[in-house]
């Protein structure tokens, strides 16, 4: 029965490469717009005076993003030789050299909750799901139990400022069938964000749908009207389905009611989005073609997702975003750059030079894609005349240190952007074995979030960022 669908998906994938060019061409035009005055969120600036949340001193939006890459990195090639501001770029991070004033390399930050402890194997599941939760996850194939992730915790506080409270993206559009890492539920390995202890936030892996979520479906010029029409349609059935869910929940028991509760949470979020659309009015349409779907080339796919994130920040559609470039344990092969073995297999390199060299090629490739995104952020002007990158805090890192050792300390990490002038980039800082969650708290402080005393296994704030 699904044969047709399969065929159309292949066609869509083939079409995607073509459309990406259209999409990007359009985005080029978008950069040329004069400084986005039209974007100035006047209501927000007014609000900022009372409540300086997620706002820079110069009144521009302050954004935070977390980008996750899989299977750790070759350590020697990742870390620079000297620390402080005189550090020299390491081979893996070389692609970031042009961005030196905007890059901070953060060393000696740990996720000790991802250690095996009594739970045994499963460092990929843990590396992934601890990355933003800083919390020990329950080892179970079905009984999910983690903790709210930092992006969601922050989105709960500042999400009302933007059309989308947060944006979750991933490049895993296919999931392997069968069981996942060491009897951990697959949900641990494919999600970064969690809105509660038991609810992972499914990321969007389809660039077209991510785009439409921000700007509406259809051609430029008709998207807002489409959004309003869709929302009117949604609104008119929300009462009905809400009522239906309540009535159904009464017939069911607790575990089932949890599922119905997820449904109702979703309904409430749709309501909130409809209200937000009313409050914010039409979004600034980037005026480009909608991306067609998932490109067949992984490189194009990843860049397209980066573009979506860039677009989200540029149009102030959200100030909180996460991107999982591939889930931990990902075994993609990189024929495009001459590495045909699987990434995960290679990452168990056993210190064999030829395998390490190949992992390093992959590490470098990933950093190159990051650099491309950061350069785009740097060359885009924000409403205060600074660059988007200046007004952002972008964490790029992995949940395993060295893929061969599965360690979770001294995790490879880059902190890009100046946090609107609150960070001191251009340095390599060794933090002396601190929990990664301390970094998260420091980011929360800069976003103006007040009531976050602790997060996960945090022991305080990072002093030197």
């Amino acid at each position, binding site marked *: 029965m699904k044969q047709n669908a399969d065929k159309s998906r292949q066609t869509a994938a083939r079409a995607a490469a073509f459309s990406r060019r259209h999409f990007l061409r359009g985005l080029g035009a978008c950069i040329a717009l004069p400084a986005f005055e039209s974007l100035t969120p006047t209501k927000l600036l007014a609000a900022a005076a009372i409540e300086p949340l997620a706002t820079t001193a110069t009144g521009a939006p302050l954004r935070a993003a977390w980008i996750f890459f899989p299977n750790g990195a070759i350590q020697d090639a990742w870390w620079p030789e000297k620390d402080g501001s005189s550090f020299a770029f390491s081979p893996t991070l070389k692609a970031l050299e042009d961005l030196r004033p905007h890059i901070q390399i953060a060393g000696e930050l740990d996720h000790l909750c991802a250690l095996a402890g009594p739970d045994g194997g499963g460092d990929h599941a843990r590396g992934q799901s601890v990355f933003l939760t800083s919390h020990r996850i329950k080892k179970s194939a079905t009984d999910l139990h983690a903790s709210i992730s930092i992006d969601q915790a922050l989105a709960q506080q500042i999400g009302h400022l933007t059309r989308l409270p947060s944006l979750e993206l991933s490049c895993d559009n296919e999931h392997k069938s069968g069981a996942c890492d060491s009897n951990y539920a697959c949900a641990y390995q*494919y999600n970064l964000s969690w809105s509660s202890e038991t609810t992972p936030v499914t990321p969007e892996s389809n660039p077209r749908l991510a785009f439409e979520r921000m700007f509406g479906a259809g051609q430029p010029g008709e998207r807002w009207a489409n959004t309003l029409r869709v929302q009117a349609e949604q609104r008119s059935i929300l009462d*009905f389905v809400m009522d239906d869910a309540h009535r159904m929940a009464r017939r069911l028991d607790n575990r089932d009611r949890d599922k119905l509760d997820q449904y109702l*949470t979703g309904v409430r979020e749709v309501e909130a989005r409809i209200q937000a659309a009313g409050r914010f009015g039409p979004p600034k349409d980037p005026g480009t073609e909608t991306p067609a779907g998932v490109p067949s080339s992984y490189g194009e796919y990843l860049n397209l997702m980066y573009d979506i994130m860039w677009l989200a920040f540029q149009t102030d559609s959200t100030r909180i975003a996460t991107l999982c470039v591939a889930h931990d344990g990902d075994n993609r092969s990189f024929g495009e750059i001459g590495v045909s073995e699987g990434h995960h297999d290679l990452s168990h390199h056993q210190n064999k030079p030829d395998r390490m060299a190949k992992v390093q090629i992959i590490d470098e490739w990933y950093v190159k894609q990051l650099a491309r995104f950061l350069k785009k952020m740097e060359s885009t002007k924000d409403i205060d005349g600074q660059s988007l990158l200046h007004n952002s805090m972008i964490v790029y890192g992995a949940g395993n240190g060295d893929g061969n050792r599965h360690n979770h300390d001294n995790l490879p990490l880059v902190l890009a952007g100046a946090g609107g002038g609150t960070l001191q980039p251009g340095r390599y800082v060794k933090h002396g074995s601190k929990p990664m969650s301390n970094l998260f708290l420091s980011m929360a402080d800069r976003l103006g979030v007040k009531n976050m005393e602790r997060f996960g296994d945090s022991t305080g704030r990072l002093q030197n960022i």
Partner: protein
Amino acid sequence: MRQSSLIAVLLAVAMSLFVAMSPASAASPAREFHKQIQPLLSQYCGDCHFDGMKKGGVAFDDFKTDRDTLTNKELWSMVLKNVRGHIMPPPKKAHPSPEECQRLVNWIKFGVFGIDPKNLDPGRVTVRRLNRVEYHNTVHDLLGVDFDTDLAFPPDDTGYGFDDIGDVLNLSPMLLEKYLAAANTIVGECVPMVSRVRPEINVPGASFHDSGDPPSHNGGTKSLSYYNSAWVENSFHAEHDGHYKVTLNLTTTEHYVDDQFDTNRCRLVFRIDGQERENREFGREGYVDFHYSFDEQWAAGDHQFSVEIQPLTQYPQLRALALRLNGVTVSGPDDTHYWIEPKDYRRFFPRPVPAMDDKAGRRAYAKELLTDFATKAFRRPVDAETAERLTDLAVSRSAETNSTFEEGVAHGMVAVLASPQFLFREERPASSGPNPLIDEYSLASRLSYLLWSTMPDAELISLASAGKLRANLDAQVKRMLADPKAAEFSRNFTGQWLQARDIEFVALDSRAILFSQEKKDPQMEDLHDRYRELQRMKHLTEDEKAELAKLRERFGKTFRRFDGIRFDELRGALQQEVQLYFTHIVREDRSVLELLDSDYTYLNQRLAKFYGLTNLDITGSDLRLVQLPTNSARGGVLTMGGVLAVTSNPTRTSPVKRGLFILDNVLGNPPPPPPPNLPALEDVKSDTGHELTLREALAIHRGKPLCASCHDRMDPLGLAFENFNALGMWRDTDHGEPVECSGKLMSGESFQSAGELKRILVENHGDEFYRTLASKLLTYAIGRGLDYQDTETIDRIVDSLDKSGGRFSVLLDGVIKSAPFQRMRPAPSLGDQANAPTKAKI
């Protein structure tokens, strides 16, 4: 007895405490343990698990209390598996008699697990959300729409290897938003929103013909190459004078070729009645649809369309560029007098809509339509209140300006598809009391989602509503298996159990795999790396171009041998082989042991060639049942290319993955996950520094006790298949060395080849396979992981499989008639719910 008297006294005290604290029935398992079981264990397991011996962390004489003994279900479950799997006691030790085994097994099941054989606990199934496959199929059956859920929804999380497990099928806010959008899209796509529309007729591309030839009545498309001049035409008969809209529909196509680009262009000229309407150049565009519309004022009579192709360039023809003429759509005339009922109108609105002023009549009609639709969609009768609320939605929408009756009803249908009653499979008990049967509507859904991955059809629902489904269960199951929809069962069950779904996207590098079968030559490898590097580069200097040409000359020859092997083009056939093979066993009610070994399989021409079975005279692309030659290495799922490929690494085989696959999916005794921080087994270095064969590397690893405990079980199983490369093709050598497949199982049997291993599995391990397959099928059927309490259910199915020689129908019957499938644990009463902790703010 080996315990000291002190321990005996302590035990007695502990036992009496235990008796005092436990229900009376629990006292006997403890007594039985001391009288019957411990002596047995002492006799057969004493050397390693008594008197301070604690091999594998297991001792049977150091339980502190009887409570400890009886609550350690994990330990006893392990004992059960290892004893039944002939892993314990080890092959060289004395073995308990079948009666003794049975005594131990019964004690574990009824004593430790506390199973009541007269009243089996059905277990608890969390309400299941439709997964992507089920949603797709359900919408298809409900509305005839082929909605691509793989594009629209994120992948479903899986649990216990399947994607229909209630506990892990979460519903994120994003997914809910997508469900709302999907409901709109689907209804919008199929339900007519008006009573009359402008007529629209498509003149299919395939019916366009050279001016000489007669028209064909083929309804498909026509492909027009960029490289050849062409002129095709067709005519259209307009019934009436009037204004028409004519739309030309094209898609640009190509055959993708890695790293080769085709820069040819062509010109397309479209004419209506000889007048040029479109004139446009096309380059390589990828797969893109183009639509061009024209307004025509026509007199009644024939009108002529022609499409002309003029090649513009003569560059190398690398990608078979073509314009696919999908057809020409004619819409009109505009005059509403000639308008017609929309397509499929009667399917949704079987009667004319009552007149505008007949409000009661319109309301009654809307209610009738929505009640019927909701009943189908919810897979049980819709309650009166819901039907009333749906009708309200429809009536109020119809009452809006510029809205129609049809739009109102469609709006109600959107609400139905967005409702949790549609998205979740709610199950209800047929009666009150402990472990009641599920009601027949729930049963109808369980059956149809198990065997069809879709909603129950009219016959199932009508039997359920008459309360006659259980009475006709056998006949219905038979009918369902004979239905073409049962292909979904094979597709989804094997897709996950045997990971056949992954065949579609598993990353494999055919050239590297084929290349590695030959002896390593570092110099050649460097040259080859350089060759591939040059191939990837976009802009080459003249020198580099020359170098590339030279290397192409050199490697072109080497690779010509591999040319027939395009793994990407085989993925579909490999996947189908698994599905068709399984379907054959289902349809013909064969023994499920044939899944492990047989003398037949399904092949098409390409697959036969891939398997090296070139003398079977198989032609064409359709797979068919093929009798394999005697001594063929194929037969059974374990030697199917697809299964071998998904258990490989991108450039080489993985005996560990293959071994694990068999332990997990055939023998049902997977080892525990590896301890953390261990490198993958195959990556060990030799002390002398020479490059190790995979087999050598594995052997070195097994020398380490920590690794040996699991890898002694996995590796021999996997190594048996070393004659099959990572693509699943036969090979005799690996890196130029002959491949060696012999090995020995933990249970003692030796084998020389995969074929022998398959026979050993069938002859000596049939029960384990029955148990594994029954467990997998029951998990898939009820949507939850199995627990200790399910042991007896599975044992009963295994017994009947034993008696029937493993017939598939016996397996399915056992699952469908089992307590977990037929019954449910009742929801706790409201009082319990009020006390139980819950986050649900409902």
